[in-house]
């Protein structure tokens, strides 16, 4: 006699998630060499890199307000958490009150070294690639970074790296951090062109 329950249980477990998810691919920086115009090539490189910048794993910690976001639909963080004066929470509700320096599988709490929000002036969520590009190049809104330091932050930062290793049940950022860093490098080397600054539609 066949017992159907094990199959139902398996389907239910798959439905609630928990396994490693794969991210979208990212085009290699070298593949843009076919674009002869330097400005056009730079814009195309930034457009590809924008897939990472706008991805929920990145944008959720770059909100335009004091609330971190969760999940692929940018839900407001629950338990309620607020930015605080140093972008790392408030007394008794620091980011590090719950988040560790690594993902916790047993509690499903994501983690990485120095878990915190990006400063308010670096908000990306709900903004267009053109708006984000202008911010990234503006020292007043990028933490006083040079373009070289922007590359270092993108390609080498441990908290940024979490976007590609978000733990079971979370969609990773597109491609790899190396591919993203290569895109940013190539974008800088081609003049760091920005798309027009247009208002976000959402």
């Amino acid at each position, binding site marked *: 006699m066949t017992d159907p329950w094990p199959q139902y249980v398996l389907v239910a477990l798959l439905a609630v998630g928990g396994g490693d998810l794969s991210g979208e691919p990212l085009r290699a920086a070298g593949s843009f060499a076919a674009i002869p115009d330097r400005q056009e090539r730079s814009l195309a490189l930034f457009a590809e890199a924008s897939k990472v910048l706008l991805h929920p794993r990145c944008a959720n910690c770059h909100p335009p307000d004091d609330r971190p976001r969760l999940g692929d639909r940018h839900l407001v963080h629950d338990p309620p958490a607020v930015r605080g004066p140093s972008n790392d929470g408030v007394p*008794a509700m620091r980011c590090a009150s719950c988040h560790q320096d690594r993902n916790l599988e047993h509690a499903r709490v994501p983690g990485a070294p120095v878990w915190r929000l990006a400063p308010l002036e670096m908000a990306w969520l709900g903004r267009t690639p053109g708006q984000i590009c202008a911010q990234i190049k503006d020292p007043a809104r990028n933490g006083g970074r040079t373009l070289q330091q922007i590359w270092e932050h993108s390609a080498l930062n441990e908290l940024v790296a979490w976007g590609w290793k978000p733990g079971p049940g979370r969609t990773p950022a597109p491609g790899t951090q190396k591919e993203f860093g290569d895109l940013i490098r190539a974008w800088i080397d081609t003049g760091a062109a920005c798309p027009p600054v247009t208002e976000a539609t959402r």
Partner: protein
Amino acid sequence: MITLRVNGAEHSLDADPDMPLLWALRDLIGLTGTKYACGEALCGACTVHLDGEAVRACVVPLSRAAGKRITTIEGLSRNGDHPLQQAWVELAVPQCGFCQTGQIMSAAALLAANPTPSDEDIDESMCGNLCRCGTYPRIRAAIHRVAEGTKR
């Protein structure tokens, strides 16, 4: 071996560095005032202090807690007479009581950083500590009572 300094006393434990601090506190050291509830850092019942900062013991691995100053509800005061504990009694804050040690530990971390918090400060710092009995108005009143004592 991992050495934990809990409420001023050192404990050498033969435990996995990934073991949650809450397990060590309750099951290995026997300090059961810190409660297990959700186990996922969602409710605050297991709140303790690590070098004075409130953390959720159910998700803090022993490797992070080792070498730090750990304070549990048992160590908040010598005789249960911390101003918050006194205010909790005076205002009869608890109902079932299960979440209250976590509530008091979070409130103590808040007042250590901000001795005279506003309602908004209290709500922002305490909103991660859930109370299914709904004692929130009395929790807020007790924190204000201690803050008023600080002002005087």
